[in-house]
């Protein structure tokens, strides 16, 4: 399941729903991305996430379906926010439930790595001295790439 929304999410609630009444789930791996203070040496005061409505959902659904083909998952979830976010706010939640923890870990890691290079979101950082579009980093490309090489 994927969701693109402006509102915050309740991680505990979302994860509980994901595994509820499915007694084949032995492990649930999840990842939450938070707004961190990356604009060093300046402090960022907030951040705005722009996205491409329509394409975002398509990409997330596509990524999720690849993960479900590649690993045996009982459930998966991606929630990605857009709009204005403050320091420490939740940006994204990725969760994978499986009978076996290895599959849950790999699929979850894959989803966030791919999402970082494929889902059409762009971060605009606001600092005391103005706004700045965040640059894509090569490390993200490398992280996504290793999943194709396996």
């Amino acid at each position, binding site marked *: 399941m994927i969701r693109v929304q402006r509102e915050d999410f309740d991680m505990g609630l979302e994860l509980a729903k994901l595994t509820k009444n499915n007694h084949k789930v032995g492990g649930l791996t999840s990842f939450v991305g938070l707004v961190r203070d990356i604009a060093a040496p300046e402090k960022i005061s907030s951040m705005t996430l*722009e996205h491409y409505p329509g*394409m975002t959902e398509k990409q997330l659904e596509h990524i999720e379906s690849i993960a479900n083909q590649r690993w045996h998952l009982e459930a998966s979830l991606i929630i990605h926010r857009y709009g204005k976010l403050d320091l420490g706010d939740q940006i*994204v939640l990725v969760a994978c439930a499986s009978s076996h923890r290895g599959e849950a870990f790999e699929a979850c890691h894959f989803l966030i790595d791919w*999402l*970082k290079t*494929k889902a059409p*979101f762009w971060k605009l950082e606001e600092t005391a001295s103005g706004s700045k579009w*965040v640059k*894509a980093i090569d490390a993200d490309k490398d992280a996504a790439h290793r999943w194709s090489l396996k």
Partner: protein
Amino acid sequence: MKLLYFAWIRTNLGVSEESVDVPSEINDVRALLDWLVNRGESYKAVFSDLSLIRVAVNQEYVDLDNAITKGDEIAFFPPVTGG
């Protein structure tokens, strides 16, 4: 043809979305870009380094030699930075 611009491409152009009628010989992304840079200085500046640009046609990632037709939705944006 509907064109969409995101992130710094949008802010630099000052346009988020526009409908354009392009000559019929403009039949792939590369040709569309060549046509676009002649529309003004801001287009020329934004599309001067294509390594910084990603393109989607009808919400799917495509290469510069991807065919395009009249009814398409074509989006230009920088490498993504979500997550």
